[in-house]
């Protein structure tokens, strides 16, 4: 059977790449917690963590150690298996999406071997993201239900209904984008946004689909359970949210999965709308440098810079906007975002049909 032949060199290359991406996302998520606290501190005119190491840079390590050392408590009346499965699923789905992000362009080594900085280029790329996102809610739902606590249950049901409601406008806003790109593969979508300026217009999708981007961004806030849509962990109503009964590293997993989600969804947003690893004048830089490895590194650096800007944007919003009420959240999703996304899709379709219809 030719469909699944194992090639050792290929396998080792991919395993290396997966390991680097895994630890990279964990590291960035760790420092995102530090960044969040620093951003909050700056915006509230405080200092933030500054005791552990220079600028408090060792604070995430101290936090992690603390969570590991805490006593592990599993509530007596909980469903034990699901109680443990909940945080595991959260972590798993958070890490799974990074498999299809193209982190940088291919580079050809001196031996002629082509290295791709993407774990898997599947031809259903964007749909894979949706599949994983739609599974992400299970971790929260199962954990919340298994805790056998009314607040946890309420919070997990909130989270599920929020995720289902916002998946629809998210999908519809992406349809408009996909009609333009004509492909689902994230790698091709990035390649189409080459450089910054092409054929008399910006090449990044943000400039072609501004409304689609705003809808997608709003939905990502809701899918990430981040303020202003962090109703599943709304302290004023639900004590703490779906992870109320959790302690020790299981709680750590839930909190950490959120930051990994933040990082990965920023990466997806950048890939879809802000040109991925492309940057202005990249062709000139490539010919000027004449070193494919260095060029690839610069591309990865450009990508990471954009991703970090996106994460910072998410944080600024969190510490700026107050929390919505749950009925307002639902009204926004069903009565504003879905019609808006549909209109955006229709306009995009009409424009493509009238002006870009290549027979």
């Amino acid at each position: 059977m030719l469909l699944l032949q194992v090639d050792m060199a290929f396998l080792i290359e991919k395993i290396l790449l997966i390991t680097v991406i895994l630890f990279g996302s964990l590291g960035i998520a760790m420092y995102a917690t530090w960044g969040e606290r620093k951003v909050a501190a700056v915006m509230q005119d405080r200092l933030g963590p500054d005791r552990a190491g220079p600028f408090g840079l060792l604070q995430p390590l101290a936090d992690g150690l603390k969570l590991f050392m805490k006593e592990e408590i599993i509530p007596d009346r909980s469903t034990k298996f699901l109680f443990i499965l909940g945080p595991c699923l959260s972590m798993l789905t958070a890490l799974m999406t990074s498999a299809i992000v193209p982190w940088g362009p291919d580079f050809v080594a001196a031996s002629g071997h082509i290295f791709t900085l993407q774990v898997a280029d599947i031809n259903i790329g964007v749909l894979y993201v949706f599949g994983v996102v739609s599974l992400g809610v299970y971790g929260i739902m199962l954990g919340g239900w298994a805790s056998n606590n009314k607040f946890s249950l309420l919070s997990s049901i909130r989270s599920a209904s929020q995720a289902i409601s916002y998946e629809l406008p998210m999908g519809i806003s992406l349809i408009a984008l996909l009609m333009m790109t004509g492909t689902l593969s994230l790698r091709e979508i990035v390649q189409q946004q080459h450089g910054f300026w092409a054929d008399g217009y910006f090449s990044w999708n943000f400039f072609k689909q501004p409304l689609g981007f705003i809808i997608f961004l709003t939905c990502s806030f809701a899918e990430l359970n981040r303020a202003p849509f962090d109703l599943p962990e709304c302290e004023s109503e639900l004590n703490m949210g779906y992870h109320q009964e959790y302690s020790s590293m299981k709680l750590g997993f839930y909190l950490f999965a959120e930051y990994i989600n933040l990082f990965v969804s920023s990466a997806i947003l950048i890939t879809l709308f802000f040109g991925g690893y492309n940057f202005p004048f990249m062709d000139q830089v490539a010919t000027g440098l004449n070193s494919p490895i260095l060029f690839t590194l610069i591309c990865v650096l450009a990508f990471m810079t954009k991703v970090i800007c996106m994460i910072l944007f998410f944080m600024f919003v969190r510490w700026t906007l107050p929390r919505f009420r749950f009925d307002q959240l639902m009204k926004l999703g069903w009565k504003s975002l879905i019609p808006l996304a549909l209109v955006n899709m229709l306009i995009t379709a009409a424009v493509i049909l009238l002006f870009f219809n290549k027979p």
Partner: protein
Amino acid sequence: MGIYDIAFWILTVIAIGCALGVILSRNPINSVLFLIATFFAISGHYLLLNAQFLAIVNIIVYAGAIMVLFLFVIMLMNLNADVEPQKGRLVQLAGVVSGGALLLVLLAALRTAKYPTLESTPNEIGLIQNLGKVLFTQYVLPFEISSVLFLSAMIGAIVIGKKEDSTHSA
């Protein structure tokens, strides 16, 4: 036995085992979880058939949306093994009889059925480009009619929801 066959057998065992788990487990939550695992195994089979689009749509629609709603309803009603209503003897007997009749029909149908073997050449129909082209040219009428069916189901759901709302407020 190549890696393809190994993957096929592992997926098959998971699919059948989890499908049995759905009907054998007492707790409705466990049933739902087994059903989700079954959907994943079936998606794996789609992948082996090179039908990536079907595989991911199966996960998005069934595992990601419909099963979340199932879980939702079960959690809200807080169904448990001990609150499950016990069925009477007569109902149990009726169940056995109808199940046996179904088995008979299936056996009769399967006895004469032909089993076409899977072609070993990679088949591209499950990829999204080909599927889209086929759906929007050859099968465009059934496709549109089924979309009208879904629309009517959606409108029906809204009508039912509205009705309940008006009686509450009145």
